């Protein structure tokens, strides 16, 4: 499993376009992996744009992304 922490720098938070970018990357680059995004005590599927949105990630929030499975590096 590969895991990394990120601080959100986008002033308007993690809304549709950035969320879509992450989700598209997760789907395209890691088709065979499980991608999880963690914020606080919530964990969502990094391949779901709706899941990403429900996290409500804002400017300055810290999130953790975990990729596990084939081709994870």
């Amino acid at each position: 499993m590969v895991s990394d922490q990120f601080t959100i720098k986008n002033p308007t938070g993690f809304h549709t376009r950035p969320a879509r970018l992450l989700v598209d990357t997760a789907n395209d680059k890691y088709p065979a992996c499980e991608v999880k995004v963690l914020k606080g005590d919530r964990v969502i599927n990094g391949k779901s744009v709706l899941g990403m949105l429900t996290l409500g990630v804002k400017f300055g929030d810290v999130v953790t992304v975990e990729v596990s499975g084939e081709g994870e590096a």
Partner: protein
Amino acid sequence: MPRILKGIAASPGIAIAPAFLLAPRATSAGEAAAASPELEWERYARAVAASKAELQALRDKTKAELGDLKAEIFDAHLSILKDPDLDAAVSRNVREEGMAAGAALEAAAKVFIDLLSEVEGQLFAARIDDIRDLCSRILSHLAGGPGSGRLELEGEAVVAAQDLTPSETTQFDRRLVKAFVTASGSASSHSSILARSMEIPAVVGLGPLEGAFERGSLLIVDGGEGLVIADPDAEQLASYRRAQADRARAKAAALRFASLATRTRDGTAIELAANIAGAADLDSALRNGAEGIGLFRTEFLYMDRPSLPSEEEQYATYREVLERMAPRPVVIRTLDIGGDKGVECLELDKESNPFLGVRAIRLCFAREDIFRTQLRALLRAASAGQLRIMFPMIATLEEFRAARGILEEERRGLEAGGTEVPAGIEIGLMIEIPAAATMADQLAREADFFSVGTNDLVQYSMAADRMNPKLAYLNRPLHPAILRVLGSVAEAAAKRGRWVGICGEMAADPLALPLLVGMGLRELSMSAAAIPRAREIVAGIDCGEARRLYERARDLETADEVRDLSRASAST
């Protein structure tokens, strides 16, 4: 039997066409499910595939016609459509719970909607609308119909709806829409402003449309009088067709004035400028002979898009507008958002009274990053033409100084980085808050110009929400109370040698024009289509007579008296 409906005149002109009722969104009620869960799942998959094809086509069409940004909304819908979590939830509901596809989708979507409504911030809340919008498209396919039929016209039509959002308005085929009529709204709501800039008639605030007419009923829309006639009789039709032809002739005649300079009968130059919402409006401004842009509403650059416009994007737009209008002046108003104009790329707090809340310059102070980006784009573009920068919603001198201070900081920053910013950019403010009107003499010491936004000045002076059709009787720019405010601003500015313009809807009112010229306004900014007619009217005005007319009007008691006086003087 003909039925006459009275509403608010939102955009002048006469249209005669069948009604197109904007259908309510589809639901799963009464849905016919397939024989087995597996067949039902296949039915759902087909509706998703059809929705996908439709969205891709819409995205490509929008991209080609309106650009990448307007198309982004469809990309957002497409990414929700392929969301694996949503898919899994619907699949579970259908295959394990034995639900019908539509109900399964609604239940699955509800989970996400409930989660999203707990997330703070308007931007996330706006995604709820995206989910609903997408669901109704899929539901509509499940019901066997096309998903976007809601906005697709089959022929020339009058579009009738509860209300229209700016994004819906832009999705219509402009060649087919002959008029808009809506149940709610006011003359200054955005769909009305768009209708005027599209030069099509509109009547708003009609009240409930149910039962008034049906899809396909022939409608006469008289946008100038705010009337809609459903199923007109032969006599009404003939009379309106004549009026329509007369209007077309008068318009053609007035267009001869499009290419002339604006002068009053006694030779005073008046600048007739156009209000625009973007570079797309320039063709109409130039065709109608605008002598400048009196109001560039930059908030439209921020609307209907999920992300903020970048400095480069704004720079390109401002530059294009300045270049194409040069050497004519262009007043660019900095971001005027809040109140009625929700913006999805900005997370604005919900306020109980947004018209009195954090909007326009107040919002720019709260979000200086956004303000500074816009100011840099403006300053960098300034060399392309004659730029005038205008700050909206200034209430006090302190605010004007603060805004100007930030502008100067950005100017110094750019110059330090080697970007040349021309000197002589005029810096002014909107007069729309009574406090600023009262202090105009002091503001005039520091501001290069004023432009009066009459729509808001009237609403704030009368303490009457301009979106509320029940208060339309207070929304009277020709009331002596408003004339006095305008006149005192003009006088205060004249003492300091500053010019005053007007950029509200009042500038285009033929009965208001002599009064505005009479009180000393020399720049009048309006919808481009209104310019030729205004030029014709100005050509008949004598400044001395207009001054006396204004002085008489100012001392009258009611708006009706002012209107009668102005009408009587126009007909002599």
